[in-house]
């Protein structure tokens, strides 16, 4: 029995891994082609009037843009396999350096947002379910729908105007107060500040992180509220919950020990799947709050019409999301024996 289950899991792993290859290939091909069908060649579109034809030609050659399209495609795939995402035209730096410099900021923001989303989503969702059809439930549902419907940038601007401009409680943008950066260990300022016991940096980084994390977290939290509520309501109707109540188990224990834990199982899977949504939301959040992550970098490359820069970051995003999705699927399959091919 155990052997059979192990073999099934291995098959699932292999099948899931095999699916990654065509998925990545489709993503990379789409990214490559989309930027090639944009009007003008990347160098002229980026640098326009600023460069002579001679220099533009030199840049084209150095980027391999003078080669046939199929050759560029093969080169591009080859580079991606080696973790090389190209060299941005506007910065003349490898995209890899940009990613290394900015990814920690995006990771810190998305993790903080995920925490906000889980606290808000699970908290309000569970309360709505527990107090179903009360004013609290109706309020929670409306709140969840509003969060889900509100565009992230609008939510960000509203929080910015209220808490930063009007009340002055938080900064309008940036990642940490000037001249207070902690010594870099992980690149995550809050973590580095804790590790180096730099309390000034910790306070500052938390202040700067609060509004962007709330914006992104609330936007995702709207989805969680509805999901947790529905799951919780279904679970509260389950036979084993009724049985527990019949046995005289205190309601608090019924709620938290029996219903809540079981209701969270599908939510955990959804949390993982929301990671891609978090990353796309991070582009808008980072732009609104001048948060120096990869999302802001992508916006800057788009603004500068640096197609090579855009291609590099979109490729990184694509690979990252596919890999994270794969890991989540594999982890889910490992803990949940029902997930098999």
């Amino acid at each position: 029995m155990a052997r059979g289950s192990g073999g099934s899991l291995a098959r699932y792993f292999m099948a899931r891994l095999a699916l990654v290859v065509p998925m990545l290939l489709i993503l990379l091909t789409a990214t490559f082609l989309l930027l090639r069908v944009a009007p003008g060649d990347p160098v002229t579109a980026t640098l326009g009037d600023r460069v002579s034809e001679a220099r533009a030609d030199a840049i084209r050659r150095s980027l391999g843009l003078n080669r046939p399209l199929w050759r560029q495609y093969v080169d591009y795939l080859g580079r991606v396999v080696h973790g090389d995402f190209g060299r941005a035209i506007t910065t003349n730096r490898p995209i890899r350096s940009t990613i290394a410099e900015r990814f920690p900021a995006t990771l810190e923001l998305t993790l903080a947002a995920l925490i906000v989303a889980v606290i808000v989503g699970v908290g309000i969702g569970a309360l709505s379910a527990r107090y179903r059809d009360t004013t609290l439930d109706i309020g929670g549902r409306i709140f969840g729908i509003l969060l889900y419907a509100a565009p992230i940038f609008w939510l960000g601007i509203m929080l910015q105007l209220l808490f930063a401009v009007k009340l002055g409680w938080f900064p309008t943008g940036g990642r940490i107060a000037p001249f207070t950066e902690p010594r870099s260990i992980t690149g995550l300022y809050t973590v580095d500040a804790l590790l180096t016991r730099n309390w000034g940096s910790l306070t500052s980084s938390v202040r700067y992180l609060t509004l962007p994390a709330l914006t992104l977290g609330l936007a995702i939290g709207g989805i969680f509220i509805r999901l947790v509520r529905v799951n919780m309501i279904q679970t509260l109707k389950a036979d084993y919950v009724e049985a527990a109540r019949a046995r005289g188990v205190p309601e608090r224990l019924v709620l938290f020990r029996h219903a809540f834990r079981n209701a969270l199982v599908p939510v955990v899977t959804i949390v993982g799947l929301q990671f891609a949504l978090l990353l796309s939301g991070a582009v808008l959040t980072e732009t609104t709050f001048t948060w120096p992550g990869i999302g802001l970098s992508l916006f800057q490359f788009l603004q500068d019409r640096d197609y090579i820069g855009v291609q590099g970051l979109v490729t990184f995003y694509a690979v990252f999301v596919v890999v994270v999705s794969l890991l989540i699927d594999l982890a889910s399959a490992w803990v949940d024996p029902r997930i098999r091919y």
Partner: protein
Amino acid sequence: MRPSNPSPLRIFGVLGALLLILTACKSSTSTTAGGGPAQNIVIGTTDSLQNSFDPAEAYDYFGTEVAFNTAETLVTYAPNATKPSPLLAAALPDVSADGLTYTFQLRSGVKFQDGTDMDAAAVKFSLQRARAFGDKDAEAAGFLLSGIKDITAAAPTKVVITLSAPDVAFLSKLAYSVASILSPTAYKNNVLSGTETGAGVVAKYKTDTVVGTGPYKLVSYKEKQSLEFQANPTYWGTKPKTPKILVRLFDKSSALKLALQNHEVDTAFRSLQPDELASFRSAAGFQVIEGQGPGIRYIVFNVNTPPWNNPNMRKAVAAALDRTPVVNEVLKGTGKPLDSMIPPTFPTHDPAWTSLYGAGGDITKVNAFLTAAGVPAGQKVNVDFWFSPTHYGDTEASVAQVIARTLEATGRFTVKISNVEWAEYGQKRKAGELPVFLMGWYPDYLDEDDYLAPFADPKIFDPAKWNDPQMLSLVAAQAKELDVTKRAVIIKQAQSYMADQAPYVPVFQISQFAATSDKVSGIVLDPIQIFRYWLLEKKA
């Protein structure tokens, strides 16, 4: 009976308490702008680095700003001066009678930020290096030094520079960041051997830092985020007043405005929009500093495209244009009407366009020029007018619309406005596909030559495709005339000739503005466009 459960009211109470704790962070962590020691300064800007801050390459405002604060030149401009004064040179040079040889005595005891001595060999190394890049890279600022024929380090503190032809603007060029004197030790691997081409040339620039003798050291550069400067502890001159300066780069002026409003930056320089700037004029705790700017905006005619190949047609537009509404309605006082391609910054400025065409909207003159051009009375002329929507800021569309309105107000023009983004705009301009269009000019060095040569010489710029032999000879004559009075006469002649032919119509001069906390002092905005960090000071 069900056990007691938390009531909704109690839950709201807990949530409220959490919110209070969160917001309480504000009072405990509130910092001064900058968050660090009070005397440090944070500057916010929407500028970005076009290429690198290697002085041999930097040709954009921001790149040169970094170079000016970290490296120094032989001569410079004191605040608000229009003539150079010595900096790393001990005195202004001895210039030979034929204007070909410049002999400089250098200051002694000056060291680069890496400890290397600043001497004649370093001067020779730096200028030759920049000139070599100019020879190989058309976009590098090094081309400004192409007139140098030879450099000799005659003694440790004596340098002799020989030019291939007299150039009255040479000292102005030496005051530009391209002529920064750099540490030969730090740049020994960033010199062209002569065999490099294309990307090989670009790869030789030193793009990570600047090692000069300047009052500040660049200690950190985060791409499109920030630059941090520290006062140079071994600086030979008057020590900078601010220990650390952080320059934060913003993508949008609206974000910069919010940051200044919220005291997250101390000074916003380049560029808030006119409306945003206006909000700080009367706001408590802020001040707006204004300075004369060297930048100009103008209308260009492609003189090869009918009907604009007829000078009288161009003159009619020059007579119809009313600059005042553009300045008042769109720029809201952040610019001044301009009546010559050489702005009033220079004593040689001649209001040639208003002399010939009036102050604007002169219908009698418009009709006269159109009649001379062969346009029947009462017939309207179509103007295909172009602009680029973002390159010159968010006000550009309004500038174009108001210009069009003033032309149409004469009853003799029908203006069709079109726009394309900057990259395509440049392509169309070069291809001659823009008959009438808006452009702007920021000089490289502070001399009248830089307002004449680029508009006459197709080898430099000449967006009107004018290429007029008489204008070219006037430009060449003023460039080699060493007598100041005689040169001024030629410069005025050039302005009059340009106005008479009207391939360009000046519209307005751009003023410089900085919005700043009133705790910050020492901001000098003068036409030379050096934002001098070393003069800035912030009161606690």
